[in-house]
């Protein structure tokens, strides 16, 4: 079985400051990892994904994430946030352990303050 833990339910951050959202997963076999963003009253859209290859993945809107197999982590970072980054962020994992279906973490709500 696979599971995803997002360690912070809420992260307040000032505009132009850096932000890191933590994600840890549990799986005994290979995984695919994703970060999705949900803006208020909208569906989810993909920020970035790790399938294989380079452990540093760059996504849209200046976000990046690093896959760390030894620590089973996939933390999301942005060096300088904007007000428009206020949203909820979901880490997700899929892979052979669960029939390649997506399993989501509980979400991290980011509030960017001016």
């Amino acid at each position, binding site marked *: 079985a696979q599971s995803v833990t997002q360690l912070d339910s809420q992260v307040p951050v000032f505009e132009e400051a850096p932000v890191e959202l933590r994600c840890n997963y549990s799986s005994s076999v290979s995984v695919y990892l994703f970060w999705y963003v949900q803006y208020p009253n909208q569906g*989810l859209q993909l920020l970035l994904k790790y399938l294989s290859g380079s452990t540093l993945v760059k996504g849209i809107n200046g976000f990046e994430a690093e896959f760390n197999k030894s620590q089973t982590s996939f933390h999301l970072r942005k060096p300088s946030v904007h007000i428009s980054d206020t949203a909820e962020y*979901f880490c997700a994992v899929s892979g052979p352990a669960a029939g390649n279906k997506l399993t989501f973490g509980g979400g991290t709500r980011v509030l960017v303050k001016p």
Partner: protein
Amino acid sequence: IAGITQAPTSQILAAGRRMTLRCTQDMRHNAMYWYRQDLGLGLRLIHYSNTAGTTGKGEVPDGYSVSRANTDDFPLTLASAVPSQTSVYFCASSADRLNTEAFFGQGTRLTVV
């Protein structure tokens, strides 16, 4: 614009009533999914379909049923709604069962009273 359309966008439903949430995609994706989103729990998979004519149970299937008569449509039915089914429901699709990227609809906000 290609994508996923869900209907209705919101609904208030009396307990015990039957309700079908509609989902249509025009991307010709093989795999489709229904999730429910509850505060602090993220998204939990209710049912899925890897291809037309097949369906499977997800993490929280009880009280829900689905059908996949064709590639484009994947309706979710609540046979007899209960208050614990109050949630936001998202339909999603992906090109194949490897789920390398899932595309989501805008959601249906359902309140069971």
